[in-house]
């Protein structure tokens, strides 16, 4: 399949890209890793008249801790996150998620910013970022703003980004010593979207109780979902098995899966329960210093 014709721009700076977006508006699409947009263009399901390629903009790909936050440049490839020593050592939730995104070919090209801006409910980063309590940084004609991840996903493929904004960075709270996280994904085969996946981030305080619990659910609703009720059941409690089990049941009740080729809704709901329980156990174990 051959895409429909389009006009191609490769700006060298973010302001240039914003200017192009403002000029061409809804007829334009930003190109980052291209592993969601290009397949749609090949099928001609998407036929944007203008492509604004972000890959020639320097300084949008980085992983660094500063000022108490972890900063991820929007053009950082999934594989760069997967192989980062810093991420492996201190951010197990991100390391787990990066490892299970699609296949190596996609991971070498696809970007974290592109994935979030695409806002596919089956995107693994969406659920992981909800669990991590991330913020998204957007640059538009009026300057820079940060968008909390909770208000970011507005619908299937719909985000809080304005048509003339470019997502430039993702910020996460810097990992504390007693933080733990995990991301578990059930898939029919390697490279597929999740039947269901669950991300967990938490802290264990000095008394061994759970704090700052985040639970994100992937591909079990029209958008990436936060299991808020499940998190509340854990906050301020010791992570005993009965507490984890109740939280896992709450997460299953909070998700909103559809019957489709990956299975009936009831089955997916139960898989959310199982994955949440396992992810919570693993996150707690890691927070206590285990692997």
């Amino acid at each position, binding site marked *: 399949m051959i895409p429909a014709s389009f006009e191609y721009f490769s700006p060298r700076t973010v302001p240039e890209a914003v200017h192009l977006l403002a000029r061409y508006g809804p007829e334009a699409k930003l190109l980052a890793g291209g592993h969601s947009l290009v397949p749609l263009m090949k099928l001609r399901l*998407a036929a944007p008249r203008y492509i604004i390629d972000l890959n020639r903009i320097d300084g949008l790909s980085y992983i660094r801790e500063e000022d108490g936050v972890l900063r991820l440049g929007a053009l950082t490839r999934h594989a760069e996150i997967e192989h980062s020593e810093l991420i492996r050592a201190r951010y197990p939730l991100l390391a787990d998620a990066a490892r299970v995104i699609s296949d190596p070919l996609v991971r070498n090209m696809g970007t974290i910013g592109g994935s979030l801006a695409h806002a596919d409910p089956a995107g693994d980063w969406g659920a992981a970022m909800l669990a991590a309590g991330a913020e998204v940084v957007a640059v538009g004609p009026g300057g820079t703003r940060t968008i909390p991840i909770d208000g970011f996903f507005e619908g299937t*493929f719909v985000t809080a980004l304005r048509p003339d904004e470019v997502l430039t960075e993702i910020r996460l709270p810097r990992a504390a010593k007693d933080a733990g996280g995990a991301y578990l994904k059930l898939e029919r085969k390697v490279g597929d979207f999740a039947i269901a996946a669950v991300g967990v981030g938490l802290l264990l305080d000095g008394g061994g109780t759970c704090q700052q619990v985040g639970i994100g659910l992937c591909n079990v609703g029209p958008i990436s979902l936060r299991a808020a009720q499940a998190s509340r059941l854990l906050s301020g409690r010791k992570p005993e098995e009965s507490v984890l089990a109740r939280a896992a049941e709450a997460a299953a009740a909070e998700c909103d899966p559809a019957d489709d080729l990956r299975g009936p809704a009831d089955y997916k709901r139960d898989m959310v329960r199982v994955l949440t329980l396992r992810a919570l156990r693993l996150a707690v174990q890691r927070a206590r210093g285990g692997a």
Partner: protein
Amino acid sequence: MKVEGTYTFPAPRERIWALLNDPAVLARATPGVKTLTPQGPDHYAARIELAVGPVRGVYDGTVSITEKAPPERMTLRVEGGGRPGTIRATGELRLVEQDGRTVVHYTGEAQITGLIASVGHRLIGGVARQIAGEFFKAVERELPR
């Protein structure tokens, strides 16, 4: 593919029934409607332009109200198609009045074919609910303040 849901309007049932049967309201409230032309009683030809993220399509089709029991129930049939694929759907709206408010229960069943079905199958349910929600919100905006 099945879709169902509810929407609550802050107005009595007769009022909502009238809105849902007014072609001008339907044309304004249905997401993406470019034209809605009456073809006979309770039968319309429609051209709809829908963008679901990067997937934009123009669809031509017909909408018919096949059964009516004013002011509580109506059955709809939608048929249409465009480059991304075709849709044949039936739906039912049930209006229940509760303390001066109206709860609309909607259920629908659709057969979708073509590219959109093979590529977007996993997304259709969520998108359909999203579109239904936008439609009812727009109908609510038609209520006098």
